[in-house]
């Protein structure tokens, strides 16, 4: 039997056991994973899992439980655990029920049949394409790279009559290449993530990774200080964008006073060129879905228009508290389904889009009189509350009078990201998806952006 059909049973059983209301989230997913070591496939995995997350309520009390799902006995067990939990939790005066308006249908391009059927063989072909393209450059080796495919189906059912289903596929790669050997080496690192395998250009990623490794090897440790324009590559910018804006625009963080943008609707938070939208209906989006993980209908919305904050994204709970629309409750990360049923559905962005400009990367760089183009940080991280950051640069190029000069590394790019959004010097045209890592839901879609006011500080 299709184990997703047990979701309505879980809701019915919970009510029969004394819950006033219940919400069941069932997911089935299969994963194929290939690990390249020293240029060849070394390890491959083929795994599958079905799970059920259940939320129950009685009056103002709410409890959750989840389980791996192999049959009806697991449903009975998880219902028992969740209902028993109701007797152990205090009332939540702000709880007012589960989702009432379910989402229907699928978003175009989220499920790709060819990706679902690709299997380990499909991944091996992608891996070969990447390795061959990288090794076309002399001195390159691929010590470590991983390639993964997932296909999934989700069903969310609740006692308000919501019954929402969707399916999808995810292709993901984490790629590292090395240039040189011994103590004189350079490294190139990239991620690739799309809903379909064919949407990732593995040959281009191989060439880019190899180029970065070679440039990293020849780069000099930066000395001195440079205050000018910093152009940040989408893969690095996306992470900073999600950690800051991605958290600042959730109703949960606003209501809990964890957002620096709380109470700032109608105020300037960015330059006039900055428009930010949350787009759960984005065709071929990594987080796209017609219904969120509470079953609520999703909707695209504008969060920042020409630099002015317009509103927030909300799940059902916080939508009612703040008078907003729901549709932004998520469990899974944008690039992996692992453990999605075991996490609570929480308020997150979906596909968070920084609207692109019209300039190519090269045009953007040509407009920089004095600055730096950062392609790779050690780790793109910032303080989500204050926006302060100091990220170690691993791959960067100094720009003078619009021209690329020397490659540099071992320097810190420092500044405040919220201030940076108010000092945007230019926005590129080519969007890239950048999933939030470490299991957090949400995906940034950002182009390269030029910021004024950040500082490059050498270590030497």
């Amino acid at each position, binding site marked *: 039997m299709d184990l997703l059909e047990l979701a309505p049973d879980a809701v019915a059983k919970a009510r029969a056991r004394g819950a006033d209301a219940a919400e069941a989230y069932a997911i089935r997913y299969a*994963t194929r994973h290939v690990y390249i*070591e020293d240029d*060849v*496939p*070394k*390890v*491959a*995995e*083929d*795994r*599958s*899992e079905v799970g059920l997350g259940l939320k129950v309520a009685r009056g103002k009390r709410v*409890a*959750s*439980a*989840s389980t*791996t*799902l*192999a049959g009806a006995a697991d449903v009975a*067990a998880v219902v028992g655990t969740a209902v028993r*939990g109701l007797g*152990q*939790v*205090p009332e*939540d*005066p*702000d709880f007012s029920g589960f989702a009432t308006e379910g989402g229907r249908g699928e978003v175009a391009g989220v499920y790709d049949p060819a990706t679902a059927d690709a299997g*380990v063989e499909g991944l091996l072909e992608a891996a070969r394409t990447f390795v061959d393209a990288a090794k076309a450059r002399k001195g390159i080796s691929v*010590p*470590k790279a991983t390639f993964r495919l997932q296909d999934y189906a989700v069903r969310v059912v609740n006692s308000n009559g919501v019954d929402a289903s969707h399916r999808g596929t995810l292709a993901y790669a*984490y790629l590292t290449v*090395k240039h040189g*050997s*011994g*103590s004189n080496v350079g*490294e190139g690192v990239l991620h690739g993530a799309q809903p379909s395998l064919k949407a990732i250009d593995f040959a281009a990623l191989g060439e880019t990774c190899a180029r970065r490794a070679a440039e990293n090897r020849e780069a000099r440790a930066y000395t001195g200080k440079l205050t000018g324009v910093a152009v940040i590559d989408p893969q690095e910018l996306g992470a900073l964008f999600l950690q800051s804006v991605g958290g600042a625009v959730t109703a949960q963080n606003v209501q*809990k*006073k964890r957002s*620096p943008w709380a109470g700032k609707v109608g105020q300037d938070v960015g330059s006039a060129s900055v428009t930010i939208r949350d787009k759960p209906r984005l065709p071929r989006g990594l987080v796209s879905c017609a219904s969120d993980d509470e079953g609520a209908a999703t909707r695209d919305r504008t969060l920042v228009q020409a630099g002015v904050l317009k509103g927030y994204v909300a799940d059902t709970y916080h939508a009612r508290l703040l008078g907003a629309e729901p549709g932004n409750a998520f469990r899974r*990360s944008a690039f992996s389904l*692992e453990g999605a049923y*075991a996490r*609570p559905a929480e308020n997150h962005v979906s596909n968070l889009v920084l609207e692109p400009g019209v300039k190519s990367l090269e045009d953007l760089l040509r407009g920089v009189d004095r600055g730096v183009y950062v392609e790779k940080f*050690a*780790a793109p*991280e910032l*303080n989500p*509350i*204050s926006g*302060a950051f*100091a*990220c*170690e640069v*691993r791959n960067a190029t100094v720009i003078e009078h619009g021209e690329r000069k020397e490659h540099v*590394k071992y320097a*810190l790019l*420092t500044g405040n990201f919220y201030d940076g959004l108010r000092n945007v010097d230019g926005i590129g045209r080519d969007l890239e998806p950048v999933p939030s*890592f*470490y299991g957090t839901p949400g995906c940034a879609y950002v182009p390269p952006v030029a910021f004024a006011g950040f500082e490059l*500080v050498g270590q030497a």
Partner: protein
Amino acid sequence: MADLFSAGLKALESAGAKFGDVRTEERIAYAIRMSNGQIENVSQVRRTGWGLRAFVDGAWGYASGTSFTPAELAAAAKRATAIACANAAAGVKKTSLRGVPSGRKTYQAAVKVDPADISGEEKVALTRELEGAMRGGAVSSTLGLYNESSIAYELANTAGAHVAWREVRVRLAAQAIAQEGDRQEMAFDAKDASAGWEFIRTIDPAAFGREVGTEAAERLQAIKPPAGLQTVILDPDASGLLAHEVMGHASEGDEITKQRSFLSRVVGKRVGSALVTMYDDGTFPGAHGSIPVDSEGSPAHKTTIIDRGVYQGYMQSLETAGTLKVRPTGNGRAQDFGRRVWVRMTNTYFAPGRDTKDAIVEDTKDGVLTKGWISGMEDVVGGGFQAVTQSGWIVKDGELRERVRGMTLTGKALAILKSVDRVSKDLVLSGGTCGKGEADDFVPVGAGGPYMRAQVVVGGG
């Protein structure tokens, strides 16, 4: 369960695996999240499944599932072996395994009071007390977290081993945000252990909460730290990031067999001052990363990485031990039943010295003292260090002066270790999870050390 193991192992062997093992797992986790006086979430997770792997001439095939029937395991064993055979034929370097476990053993978790025996009401009351104690003054937002997990494993392999063990962990964490005008500052701290409820009973939740709330409020007055090369007194958290992120990751055996690590050829060479000794120790009593055996059934081990400044050796799995012709060290770990085994750290830390923290501060004319950690990132290839701390102090003429905001510590790890000139006699480990550079493959680890004074590049704030 014996039928399952038997079906999986027989199918692995008959499909042509030179070695294989089957691992089962039942994970029960309980979590409470409370914010600003209200419950955000109370949940219990049960996750159970099996995974098996086949080894063929240097290549591995893995398969896993959640339906516990002998037929499912037998079919998966064939798939795993076919994957391994295909990869072996694709030209993977031939390797052999070393120190494969073959005995039968059951390990009991060192737990005095099983957290599962404590009522949900008591756990909620604990979290409420912690969260409530943070509130007041400039604190505008609070978050209290309680987590427990109990994982029961069983492993059998084609060499005859059958090992069962259980890992139990508990954790109490607090986060406070203080606000003054538009300025917001955050403080976070956690107390965790591989232990039962008896560890939670050693914590005064009200005092812990007050400490975190006060810390957040004090940070509103913090100033920007001085930038550039500084004399830095690394607190145990920052010491731990240096141990784990740079020296630890670069000492994982699989990074050595691939010659990816900047430490690939340094055994016997000086990599730090004589005050620097570093271990990875899966046997550390009660620490977050402690395990009785790894995911291959090898007993946990205390591995000396650096001894008085001289590099000693690496952490090993069965395969890297075979390739490097050494003994396995109990570091072959997998996130869960569905994931591959890698060489992973357990508890990685610098050994204490003879100084006191106060004596180090008194001996420092100009510098900074760090407090708390936010994050760190490894650089296996280049040996660069990046760690972000929560806060700190200016040190001037032997005294702690102004509070400073969180800072980024950076520089070349070996240059930092060679500059270490004072080491305190403290040893504090903090728990966390490690992703080995991957974005979603995490195992519980511990990291820490003493207060260490060194020359480090400081930025940010």
